[in-house]
């Protein structure tokens, strides 16, 4: 079965849009993290798609970098979320506005 590259790209765009929409609309830090992961993976999908269609391995190599960075980011981010939750029993980012001008 040979799925055209355009389909993958449409899927990636949809995933990215869903992630961005969630990031902007949801208040919970955890959900926002998941949305962020969704966006990153949407981008990964485009990388792989182009890598395949252009027969260039560089795109797939970039995906590994993105995954590594995403893993590290989640580790730090979840740590912060846990720490914040312990402090105020909530993960709403709207309440985290101590540094506003």
């Amino acid at each position, binding site marked *: 079965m040979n799925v055209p590259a355009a389909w993958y790209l449409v899927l990636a765009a949809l995933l990215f849009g869903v992630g*961005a929409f969630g*990031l*902007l609309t949801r*208040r919970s830090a955890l959900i*926002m993290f998941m949305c962020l992961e969704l966006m990153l993976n949407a981008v990964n999908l485009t990388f792989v798609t182009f890598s395949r269609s252009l027969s260039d391995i560089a795109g797939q190599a970039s995906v590994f970098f993105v995954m590594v960075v995403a893993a590290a980011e989640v580790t730090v981010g979840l740590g912060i979320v846990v720490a914040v939750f312990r402090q105020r029993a909530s993960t709403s980012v*709207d309440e*985290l506005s101590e540094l*506003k001008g």
Partner: protein
Amino acid sequence: MAPVATLILLLPLVGFLWVLMMGTSLKERVIGVAATGVVALSFVLSVVAFFLLLRHSDREMTVHLFNWISVGTLNVPAALLVDPLSITMCLFVTGISALIHLYSIGYMKGEKDVRKFFLYLNLFVFSMLLLVLANNLLVTFVGWEGVGVCSYWLVSYYFYRDSAASAGKKAFLYNRVGDIGLLVAMFLLFHATHTLTYLGVFHAAGTLSPTVATLTVLALLLAATGKSAQIPLFNWLPDAMEGPTPVSALIHAATMVTAGVYLLVRMSPVLAMSPDGRATIAVIGGVTAFVAATIATSQKDIKKVLAFSTVSQIGYMVLAVGVGAYSAAIFLMIAHAFFKALLFLGSGSVIHSLGGEQDLRKMGGLAKYLPLTFPTFLIGWLTISGVPPFAGFFAKGDVLTNVFEHNKPLWVLGVVTAILTAYYMSRLFVLTFRGTERFREVTHGHDPHESPWVMTLPLVVLAVLSVLGGLLDLPWAHGRSLAGFLAPVLGYVPRVAAASTGAQWGLAAVDVAAAVFGLLAAFSIWKDITESSRYESSFLEHVWHWDDLYDATIGRPLTEAAVFSDEVLEPQVIDGAVTGVAVATRNSAEGLRKLQSGFARQYALAMVLGFAVIIVYLVARVH
């Protein structure tokens, strides 16, 4: 010769350093004697140097001490120039200074800080000797500044009195204005001749362009007006009378104020290049002599009268320089040093006997109480009035004869000044020594007492010198006396026509008539009154409102500018700019901080929108 000349210069410095190092452990008497001793020794060595110089064939010697400055083409040696002019100056500077040091021992007895007084006095003599002995303009300038600063210290010696402190400042500031003239003259000469040594400058003087020569002469004139108290910078000298009387005698009559005249005479080869410059000098001198003499007729303070008389007499010297009669200027300078030191020390003796009173209205009838001061003062008075055969008659006659040959209007002014001189000195004399006794209130009924011998001895010596000073340069012996001695170092100014013997007798008769007229006028007016608004106009008493003029044109505008700076410029413009920047920063920050809402999703939205804009831009650019 070299060691002698060096020692002349260094002895007062040694005295200064010794007293300085010994601190307060020395007795007052010892300090006085030591300070007097070094200056007296300096005088003895000057006499030795004089005779050595007479034996020397070309009468001009440079004593090289060390190289002071050597930068590019600027080479300034620390060297002394021993020639007839500098030795003449040395002789009378050290001689008069020694006498005044001796006098000071008596006069300053019991004052609070005698050590300081003699320190300054010795340093002053050193500076003066440096000034006259230097072989280049820069070293002269060092001495020039030295005498200026010593004068400042000594004028404000009683610094706890406001008037003395401000008089010192005034003297210093007026001198600074003159110093600019000397600096400018040095710049001009160095630019034109690439040297600052006198002999080098004189050698190249012939190549100076008329403009440069005139500018240099005018700059030198400015320097001389500052140091020698000529119009327009003469007002500091009368105020300088706030210092102790020996200082007035030493600095403000006999030595320092002659530095300006000395400088002009020293630079005579440059003066010779600029007839316009010399004409200006002559006018300044003549007008100063006249103006100061008019002011002296209305002063009520005995020292003020003498101060203005000094200004007037130096005006004569400057006038003589202006018409090219350099040796006459030096002759009058020496004679003036004798009789003005005598008059000042005599007035000091009078003031001493009255316990510090200086007001002429509170004197009178002192002749019989001061058996030594009175006759010596009498001689000083006759000398300055120009009565023959005293020194003043010959010196002033020499000046006026030369002026007569070159410039008739200035000669008339000079003769009028001579009448005024005789008049105001006779007024001073009558009010002090004759008439009714008006001092009882000051002395609490006691009789005034004559001063101790250390004070009267200098008076006697100076009186003898005043009587015999004319012998230095008798009119019928020009060429064999002072004028002939000085001639090799003086710039050549062509004589219009040497006055014939008959003319000289005529001029001498005019001088005598002027003196006698002044004397008689003063005696008939001041015989039995002590003050009269008819003869003492307030215009003259207030120095032609000269200080008020400076106050109105310079002092007050500058004060207003300072107040304006303080009240408007500083708080509004300078502070305004600084606080303006701060306020603008704070206000803009107040507006911008609202962007930092603290809502993470808002930031995310901003990023999305930003990306959207960028993408739209990029897409639009591709198509």
